[in-house]
């Protein structure tokens, strides 16, 4: 355990981020009348995020826990912090290039986005149930506000309401679950939960305590499940993705989901996983496996019928969460590395796909008609993102899925074979709706009134910058896989 000074030194990235948030607030006020205010604000945000990346790079390595065991400082936390910095930088660039966010409110948008990022980085390293809950709320509150950012839009206010009601209920249920865990194990530390459970398992705890534990964990799952949009806590997801500004949805569909997975990994693997074999005899792996089956099947089957591309991508992101939960059910180190690798690829392809939808200037499938002749760059990069999400070689998504399925199959038990087979069948279904969008873009002719889609040069460059690695990682993924092998240590 690190003392306060050492903790602060390792907490530098978050401190830099907090300073950036304050700096944006001040610049936003001072430069009120400057014509260059938007560029200035984006510049401050990007410099701040670069400084945060630098601070993360410079902090001493070596796993330890900070601030009397509130936060873990390990490979998992560092990887996800880097991940969130990248996602936030892309979020800032999307915001800068987007016409959905009015220029006069850009500072507001960045402040919320970076507060959200701060919450994400705390969520990925929280080692204590109180910290976990606080971080989850720090992620949730700005998400509600940003979903309803265009409040005059009827759909945006509907999205924000649905999000806040679902989110509030889910986090309340999770809090109740945490209070039961506290009662059963007598500790709020996630690693303490593991120790208490091992002691209870060897001490021959009665069935009543086990049932209480099962209920406590299922209630806690509500909070995580809502963050990653897992069935049956997915209902908010399509409506929020459809109603919220696309610029923000690109970020929302990736970063909070990744943080939810980081927290799930820590909660299940550290608190209920290897140290306490079978955690007092309950089949966590099977429970997560069944949730995974429900999540991917529902996501893929409902996505087939959608003709709104944002909604289609919302169901696709539910399905993607299903594949990730499938690997999480395995819970081996190999599976956790596969989840981290897949999330890395998912960042590129999903943010790219939503950015493409925003640039297309319409979210109905008909807005993409004949896109190949109206804007070739947009059509080709969208096709790359969508095929990569399907998991077809030679795109990054294929490599990611390969690792996920390999981790599931390597367990070698009938349940996991069945899980993998259902996963593969789901991938086959997903090809249908991803390919549907590509078909509309390349095979359908543009009709009268479908003009050329104007995309500014920086936006095209950003699209290509996301599509390039999606292709490159599909043939040469070793660097990222090596990085994850080195950086997947988890503090237990």
């Amino acid at each position, binding site marked *: 355990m690190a003392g306060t000074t050492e903790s602060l030194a390792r907490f530098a990235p978050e401190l830099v981020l907090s300073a950036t948030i304050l700096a944006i607030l001040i610049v936003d006020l001072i430069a009120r009348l400057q014509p260059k205010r938007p560029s200035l604000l984006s510049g401050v945000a990007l410099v701040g995020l670069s400084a945060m990346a630098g601070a993360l790079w410079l902090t001493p390595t070596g796993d330890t826990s900070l601030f009397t065991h509130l936060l873990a400082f390990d490979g998992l936390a560092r990887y996800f912090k880097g991940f969130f910095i990248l996602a936030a930088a892309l979020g800032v660039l999307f915001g800068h290039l987007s016409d959905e966010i009015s220029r006069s409110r850009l500072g507001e948008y960045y402040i919320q986005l970076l507060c959200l990022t701060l919450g994400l980085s705390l969520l990925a390293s929280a080692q204590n149930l109180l910290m976990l809950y606080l971080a989850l709320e720090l992620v949730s509150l700005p998400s509600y506000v940003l979903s309803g950012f265009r409040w005059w839009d009827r759909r945006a206010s509907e999205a924000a309401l649905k999000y806040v009601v679902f989110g509030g209920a889910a986090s*309340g249920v999770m809090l109740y679950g945490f209070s039961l865990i506290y009662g059963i194990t007598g500790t709020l530390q996630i690693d303490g939960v593991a120790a208490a459970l091992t002691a209870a398992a060897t001490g021959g705890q009665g069935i009543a305590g086990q049932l209480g534990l099962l209920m406590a964990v299922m209630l806690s799952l509500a909070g995580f499940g809502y963050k990653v949009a897992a069935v049956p806590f997915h209902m908010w997801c399509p409506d929020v993705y459809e109603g919220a500004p696309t610029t923000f949805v690109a970020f929302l569909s990736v970063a909070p989901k990744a943080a939810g997975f980081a927290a799930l990994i820590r909660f299940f693997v550290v608190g209920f996983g290897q140290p306490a074999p079978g955690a007092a005899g309950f089949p966590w792996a099977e429970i997560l496996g069944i949730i995974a089956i429900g999540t991917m099947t529902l996501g893929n089957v409902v996505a087939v019928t959608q003709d709104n591309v944002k909604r289609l991508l919302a169901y696709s992101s539910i399905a993607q969460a299903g594949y990730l939960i499938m690997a999480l059910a395995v819970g081996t180190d190999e599976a956790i590395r596969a989840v981290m690798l897949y999330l890395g690829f998912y960042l590129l392809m999903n943010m790219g796909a939503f950015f493409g939808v925003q640039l297309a200037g319409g979210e109905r499938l008909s807005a993409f008609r004949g896109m190949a002749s109206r804007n070739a760059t947009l059509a080709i990069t969208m096709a790359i993102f969508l095929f990569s999400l399907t998991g077809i070689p030679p795109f990054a998504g294929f490599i990611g899925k390969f690792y996920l399925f390999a981790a599931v199959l390597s367990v070698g038990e009938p349940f996991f074979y069945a899980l993998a087979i259902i996963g593969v069948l789901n991938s086959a279904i997903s090809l249908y709706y991803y390919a549907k969008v590509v078909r509309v873009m390349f095979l359908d002719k543009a009709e009268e009134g479908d003009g050329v889609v104007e995309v500014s040069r920086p936006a095209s460059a950003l699209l290509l910058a996301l599509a390039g690695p999606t292709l490159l990682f599909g043939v040469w993924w070793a660097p990222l896989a090596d990085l994850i092998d080195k950086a997947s240590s988890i503090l237990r």
Partner: protein
Amino acid sequence: MIIGLNHFQVVSALLFGLGLLTIITRRNAVAVLMGVELVLNAGLVNLVAISRYQTGGLDGQIFALFGVVLAAAEAVVALAIVLQLFRARRSVDTIDVTDMRG
């Protein structure tokens, strides 16, 4: 009769159940948010009682203090959203808020 942990846990379980019932059955958005508050407070009652009667120490009570503040923050954001919804639609009835389906 001595009031002990069990009594508090029963109260908390009742609060939790009533909160969920409110969330599921009420149609007015503000009433639904009241249900959310009940669920939150059920957890907080549990935490304080457990910390007082079972584990000792202040962990649970500090958690509850943070929880109270967070519940207030969440209520602020939620009511602001309901207010905007009312401005956009002149209604806060969840039955009316169904532009998006499928």
